[in-house]
């Protein structure tokens, strides 16, 4: 069963309640009754297995075998029975690594399959999956989806899946339930019928409905712009003195979009951070042309933090890493204030960005309390506030619902048309096409 609905309709809360991990009375109110297998969910722990969105947050133990065994131990399964169950669960999700394999060496898709195996080993009758593929690259999505389909076919368990990327799951589910913004059930039925009847409303609430993907009308901009940033024989290293097997030559002109693509771990993020003047090149060079450096050193890594602001802005993959201030408004004012702009100018920039990204109502909120989509929009807006000429984005559209996605892509397209150069590390093919990016496909082999 696939559970759909706008954000805030209580999908994740319902899953947590079914899993029996919802906080007690002091954390919120509950009414009505909910039973799993005829019992209250808290008492029925082990009947429902829960897999969450963030692959990193679910790894509990240091070794694969121990991690899968953890749930069985908590249920008091006898030792002799645990290890056969562990092997069976790992087989079912297709994770063919030794039991001693360190969990930190797994990829995102593998970690999600590990979490699935951990839930399976508890032999649940009910599998609860809360956006299990939202944080994965396209390959990881298929990996996890196939593992779930295989497991359901083998065990005959029931699954409740919350996911706003509907397409991948359509063939796996046989029932779709749609929640309204107020948390009531709006539709309940066979997938194709529900999508046909509710498609438009779902798409408007941010669900990726096949055939109703957002369309971006592109803004025209002048074709030829001066070059701003060049990379020559560039090799990058996340950790100093450990360069990745990757060698890049590229030029970046104003008004153009360069997309860095390639499999996980190839170094997209590291390359993006190096181009952003945040990491020093391992060898080769990143040079700003005179048009960009405007009197500063040609090497961005030598720039002071304040000099970076108007030249290169970087949006991090995890928005939480870049939040500094206590309110949304302060977050947006931070860059302009560091530049020493007059208060009137700061105020004007902040208000226009709040308005443009639909964050006005949240101006006084703490950035950490925002939803995923709101955090993403804020992290982009905060960087735009200082008006950098080059914008570097690390997975800007990762895990975003269709509405946030469309808002982001049209904003970036406008920036491109107005002469900003954009670099994006991304897996999102749809994003590449929508914005007309030049693709730099990275592979592990030196180019």
């Amino acid at each position, binding site marked *: 069963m696939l559970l759909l609905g706008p954000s805030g309709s209580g999908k994740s809360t319902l899953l947590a309640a079914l899993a029996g991990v919802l906080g007690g009375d002091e954390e919120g109110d509950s009414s009505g009754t909910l039973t799993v297998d005829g019992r209250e969910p808290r008492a029925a722990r082990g009947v429902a297995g829960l897999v969450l969105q963030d692959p990193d947050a679910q790894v509990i133990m240091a070794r694969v075998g121990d991690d899968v065994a953890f749930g069985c131990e908590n249920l*008091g399964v006898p030792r002799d029975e645990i290890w056969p169950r562990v092997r069976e669960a790992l087989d079912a999700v297709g994770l063919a690594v030794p039991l001693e394999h360190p969990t930190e060496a797994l990829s995102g898709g593998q970690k999600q399959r590990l979490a699935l195996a951990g839930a399976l080993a508890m032999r649940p009758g009910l599998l609860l999956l809360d956006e299990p593929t939202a944080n994965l690259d396209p390959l990881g999505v298929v990996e996890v989806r196939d593992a779930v389909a295989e497991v359901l076919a083998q065990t005959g368990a029931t699954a409740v899946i919350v996911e706003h990327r509907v397409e991948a799951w359509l063939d796996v589910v046989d029932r779709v339930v749609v929640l309204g913004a107020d948390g009531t059930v709006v539709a309940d039925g066979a997938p194709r019928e529900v999508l046909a009847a509710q498609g438009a409303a779902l798409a408007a609430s941010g669900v990726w409905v096949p055939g109703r993907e957002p369309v971006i009308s592109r803004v025209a901009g002048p074709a030829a712009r001066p070059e701003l940033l060049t990379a020559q024989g560039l090799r990058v290293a996340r950790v100093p003195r450990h360069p990745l097997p990757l060698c890049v030559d590229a030029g970046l002109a104003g008004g153009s979009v360069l997309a860095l693509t390639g499999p996980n771990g190839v170094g997209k993020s590291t390359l993006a951070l190096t181009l952003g003047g945040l990491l020093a090149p391992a060898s080769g060079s990143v040079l700003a042309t005179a048009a960009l450096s405007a009197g500063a050193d040609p090497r961005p890594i030598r720039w002071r*933090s304040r000099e970076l602001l108007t030249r290169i802005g970087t949006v991090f993959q995890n928005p939480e890493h870049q939040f500094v201030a206590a309110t949304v408004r302060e977050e947006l004012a931070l860059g302009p204030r560091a530049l020493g702009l007059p208060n009137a100018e700061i105020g004007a920039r902040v208000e226009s960005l709040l308005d443009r990204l639909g964050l006005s109502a949240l101006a006084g909120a703490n950035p950490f309390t925002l939803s995923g989509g709101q955090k993403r929009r804020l992290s982009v807006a905060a960087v735009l506030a200082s008006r950098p000429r080059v914008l570097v984005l690390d997975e800007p559209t990762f895990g975003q619902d269709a509405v946030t996605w469309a808002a982001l892509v049209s904003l970036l397209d406008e920036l491109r048309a107005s002469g900003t150069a954009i670099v994006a590390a991304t897996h999102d093919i749809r994003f590449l096409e929508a914005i007309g990016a030049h693709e730099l496909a990275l592979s592990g082999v030196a180019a």
Partner: protein
Amino acid sequence: MTAGSVPGAPRLSVARVNPVAKLAAALIVAFTLALSVDAVSAGVALALELLALPFAGLPVRAFWRRTAVVWITAPLAGLTVALYGRASGTVHLHWLFVNVTDGSLQLAGVTVVRVLAIALPAVALFATVDPTELADGLAQLLHLPARFVLGALAAFRLLGLMREDWRSLALARRARGVADRRTLRRSLGLAFALFVLAIRRGSALATAMEARGFGGSAPRSWARVSRFGGGEWGLVVAGAVVAAGAVTVAVVTGSWAFVGR
């Protein structure tokens, strides 16, 4: 998956002994040596330990890397005592609070030997401890509360993620234009941001653990066996022999001096 899966460690080496035994052996030596301030007991203990170290199951390079901090801090502790320690005998150097005398120099030498004798075996033994095995031992053998031990074990795993967070936070501050400020304020801000992220990661992990039935009222079973057999008793006895040898020689030679006397 049985007890003792330290990667690359040879069979039958001390590295594979149950961490609880390592803990016991290190504690016996440390407590005994902490009772006296004489040179003889610490010297005898250190000599016996140096004889035993080759059997600790630690490759030579790893040994120097892990114990580097001990080799650096021991002389520093000695230097401090030499400069500021209780003065007696001939004065060699006197300047403000610095007072180097025969007495303080002797005390400094004793301090260096004592720090080495206590810290070296502890570091060498714990370098090969696998956190999962330690947790198994503490919960199964010493019957510490499983909830506490496993919570700590899971939190320990978050340290690696926090190191990554710290790097990203520092880079992000530079990108946001606030990295030119005074270093102290910046570090405090970074530390606070890391603290916030750590709490969020911690609560997410707690939810994941609860979802796997952790913290329930049902009795827990253990997938891995934590054994305390011959090898374990052997190591504890070895620790006791080092401690007893040191005390015996010191008492016989008349140099044993209880702390505070």
